[in-house]
């Protein structure tokens, strides 16, 4: 059984890995994203994830379908956390089972890379110095969270 889902709070892989078991499979590869205590030179205390879930699930399911087309795998799942997370907790989990390990490694890598680029999820970091900011947000990165308003360029 394959699929993409969101959960509130840290991801518990043991709740999901059972869905990937299959007596025809000899290999299983998983990736876990853990909340780190630093990012780009700043000390991080905790994180907050927010997702546009209805579109996020569709896009996540598309990524998993692509992985199943491209690689000789049997099952693949991805679970992403939303809400508050503490240091060391699991923000995302990807699990892939396959007959042979090569396909499982490639598909697991593909899924996490695509999820990070395409699924509408946002991460707010809370820093030791009391500041906080949305990761990958230009205004946040350059001047903290209170930036002067400016016109946002329309995407192509």
């Amino acid at each position, binding site marked *: 059984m394959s699929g993409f889902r969101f959960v509130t709070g840290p991801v518990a892989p043991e709740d999901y890995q059972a869905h990937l078991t299959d007596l025809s499979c000899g290999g299983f590869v998983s990736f876990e*994203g853990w909340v780190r205590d630093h990012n780009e030179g700043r000390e991080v205390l905790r994180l907050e*994830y*927010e*997702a*546009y879930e*209805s*579109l996020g699930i*569709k*896009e996540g399911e598309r990524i998993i379908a692509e992985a199943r087309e491209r690689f000789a795998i049997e099952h693949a799942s991805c679970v*992403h956390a939303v809400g508050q997370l503490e240091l060391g907790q699991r*923000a*995302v989990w990807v699990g892939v089972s396959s007959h042979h390990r090569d396909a499982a490694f490639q598909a697991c890598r593909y899924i*996490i890379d695509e*999820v*990070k*680029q*395409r*699924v*509408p*999820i*946002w*991460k*707010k970091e809370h820093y030791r110095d009391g500041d906080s900011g*949305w*990761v*990958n*947000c*230009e*205004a*946040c990165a350059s001047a903290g*969270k209170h*930036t*002067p*308003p*400016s*016109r*946002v*360029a*329309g*995407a*192509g």
Partner: protein
Amino acid sequence: MKTIRIEYFAVLREHTGRGNESFSTGAQNVDELFAELNERYSFPAVGQLKVAVNDEFGDWQTRLTDGDSVVFIPPVAGG
């Protein structure tokens, strides 16, 4: 005039101070809608925005119909 449901996430939610709203507009497409909203909110520069219409990725020329839902998507940072 048509009524569009807008949903705001992350930095845009914090900036507008709301998760969603119903917005009456004469905008023909996403680009015109964004210009109107920007008049009101003066959005911060968050980087390249994407857009979704009715829970599917669209583009700035996607035409709008009464009852559509629209989400502007700042750069993502999952994982």
